[in-house]
């Protein structure tokens, strides 16, 4: 049996604020310190409506799920309060799984997160999934000063511990930790799914986050880092699990890909490339200072990154570099299906978060891309499974719903 047999495809949406100013060259960072004047509330209102339209379209087109995430102080994301958007999505959809990926749990109170996430799960009738990030370095510049980047990893581990305790032990319980103390840990409502919705750790493949996922028996959702780093992280995850006598279910590994489908490879690259380049050059514009606040990584890790030109200067990569090291699949339905199937088998993943809206892409291209992906790529992917005897109509029924 191949991972393709159980492959789940999630429509991943960044919710960019799409309105690049004419003086963009003078703006040094679109994270942490983007000029407040760049935000036009009328444009923002239109974009929230547009983003929600695309989420609803993803459900209608047969994606297994949708995935949204959280960032702060940035044109990169209009969902700094990601649970609010998730509430709107839950109310606007009826079938699709909703993955929230997610609130950096150490940036909030973990009991409050258990409440928000519990609410969403009950409201949605058990359609929620959660991927929990440490939070990028930028989030620490953007939040209250008591969220100290030097304790980020310790707080992350402990806040996750609080969340899982709140969901797996009969409340009320006590918690006495280094960072969090609860007399009565007892968040209401409790999740709809038992013992709790599926949880992934979001990471860039660091040893700490992989270890954390294995320690707690959670899934691992990798962010957009070079493919060899991703494969190393998954190998490590499987090795660690094997040491403990467990195996990693492919459903516990998510890769994230950038995809654009058109009738031909040439047309796909021509239509997508300027927007994907804009995704990196504008939406990813962030000085190294903000990527690595003090203590966010060890001094040794800082030295490793500072010594590696590719890591320290990633935003200036060329198109060819990006295609070579990253999961960018642009092409005909056959090309994209073949590429994704190869990546899924190589990674041993059972899930793919597919990014189909790129940078400043106009809505018509996004809708065309989503439609072609759903109608032409997904059936081709399903047909590659070793048990691919189902007809197309059934192929569109999401896994887990039968």
């Amino acid at each position, binding site marked *: 049996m191949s991972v393709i047999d159980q492959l789940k495809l999630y429509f991943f949406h960044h919710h960019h604020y799409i309105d690049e100013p004419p003086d963009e060259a003078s703006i040094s960072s679109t994270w942490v310190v983007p000029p407040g004047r760049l935000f036009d509330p009328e444009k923002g209102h239109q974009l929230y409506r547009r983003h929600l339209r695309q989420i609803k379209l993803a459900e209608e087109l047969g994606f297994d799920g949708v995935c949204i995430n959280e960032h702060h102080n940035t044109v990169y994301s209009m969902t700094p309060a990601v649970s609010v958007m998730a509430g709107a999505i839950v109310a606007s959809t009826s079938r699709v799984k909703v993955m929230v990926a997610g609130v950096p749990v150490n940036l909030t109170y973990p009991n409050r997160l258990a409440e928000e996430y519990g609410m969403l799960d009950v409201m949605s009738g058990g359609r929620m999934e959660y991927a929990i990030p440490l939070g990028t370095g930028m989030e620490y510049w953007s939040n209250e000063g008591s969220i*100290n*980047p030097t304790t980020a990893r310790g707080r992350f581990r402990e806040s996750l511990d609080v969340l899982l305790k709140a969901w797996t032990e009969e409340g009320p319980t006590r918690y006495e930790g280094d960072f969090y103390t609860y007399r009565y840990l007892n968040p209401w409502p409790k999740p709809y799914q038992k013992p709790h919705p599926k949880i992934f750790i979001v990471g860039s493949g660091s040893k700490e986050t992989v270890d954390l996922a294995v320690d707690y028996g959670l899934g691992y959702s990798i962010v957009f880092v070079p493919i060899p780093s991703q494969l190393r992280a998954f190998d490590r995850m499987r090795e660690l699990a094997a040491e403990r006598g467990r195996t990693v279910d492919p459903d516990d590994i998510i890769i994230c890909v950038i995809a654009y489908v058109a009738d031909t490879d040439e047309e796909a690259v021509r239509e997508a490339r300027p927007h994907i380049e804009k995704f990196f050059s504008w939406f990813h514009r962030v000085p190294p200072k903000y990527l690595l*606040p*003090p203590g966010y990584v060890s*001094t040794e890790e800082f*030295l490793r990154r500072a010594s590696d030109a590719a890591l320290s200067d990633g935003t200036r990569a060329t198109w060819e570099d990006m295609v070579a090291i990253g999961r960018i699949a642009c092409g005909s339905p056959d090309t994209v299906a073949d590429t994704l199937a190869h990546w899924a088998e190589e990674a041993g993943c059972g899930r793919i978060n597919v990014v189909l809206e790129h940078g400043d892409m106009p809505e018509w291209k996004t809708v065309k891309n989503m439609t072609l992906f759903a109608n032409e790529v997904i059936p081709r992917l399903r047909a590659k499974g070793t048990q691919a005897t189902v007809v197309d109509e059934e192929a569109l029924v999401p896994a887990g719903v039968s």
Partner: protein
Amino acid sequence: MPYEQQQLIVNGIDTAVLTAGEGPPLVFFHGAGMITGFDALLPLADRFRLILPHHPGFGDSGDDPSIDRIEDYVLHYLDLFDQLELDEFSLAGHSLGGYLAAEFAIYQTARVRRLVLAAPVGLRVPEHPTVDFFSVADEQVPETLAADLSIFEGHVSMPPTPEFLAERYREATSFARIFWRRSYDVKLPKWLHRLTMPTKVIWGSADRLIPPAQAEIWAELLPNAEATTIPGAGHLLFDESRDAVDAVARFVAEEVTV
């Protein structure tokens, strides 16, 4: 006369201690940036036994993430001074070290004969706020730290090496363990009344990190203090001005001559 350096294990922390000279002991608490080293302070060794420990997480001392409050520094130095059998001494500190010196003296009033606070961080002065060092753009760090940029010659290559940047990242990390949230302690004014020993507050008039106008606020809050301004010097006043070093020497020596 160069420093002699020894490494002492202090409650598990490998601690570098630089010493130079003979005479009454003078402990110096350094600031968070160690780019220029401490040779500028060596004239103090002509009159005193100068003792300059590297803080945990800085320079040649080891890391200890659990040193994350100013009180942990005070306790670390109580341990160190026990090992060094230092009972009474004069104490000077610069920037982070100035705040630490004041804090140490608040708890250990009887041990500190004379106190020097050089451009200390730690007070909230809304009219003359301390610049948030973490917010300073990398390219503006040199001019924020010094009025005389020639003091960095021989200490920084351009562009900086990854190793140089990593050492600065380590200093920023250790500094952030205490000061990420903010550079002041709201309760500090409440306890400065305990510093009854003769105290000198010394500041460069061109300090662009911690405004020299804060010197007067310190002098008002301290019971037995005088403020001295070094004309033209920036935040790294001892590197920039021999007069600043000599002023410290004269002030600390007064107890010997009186």
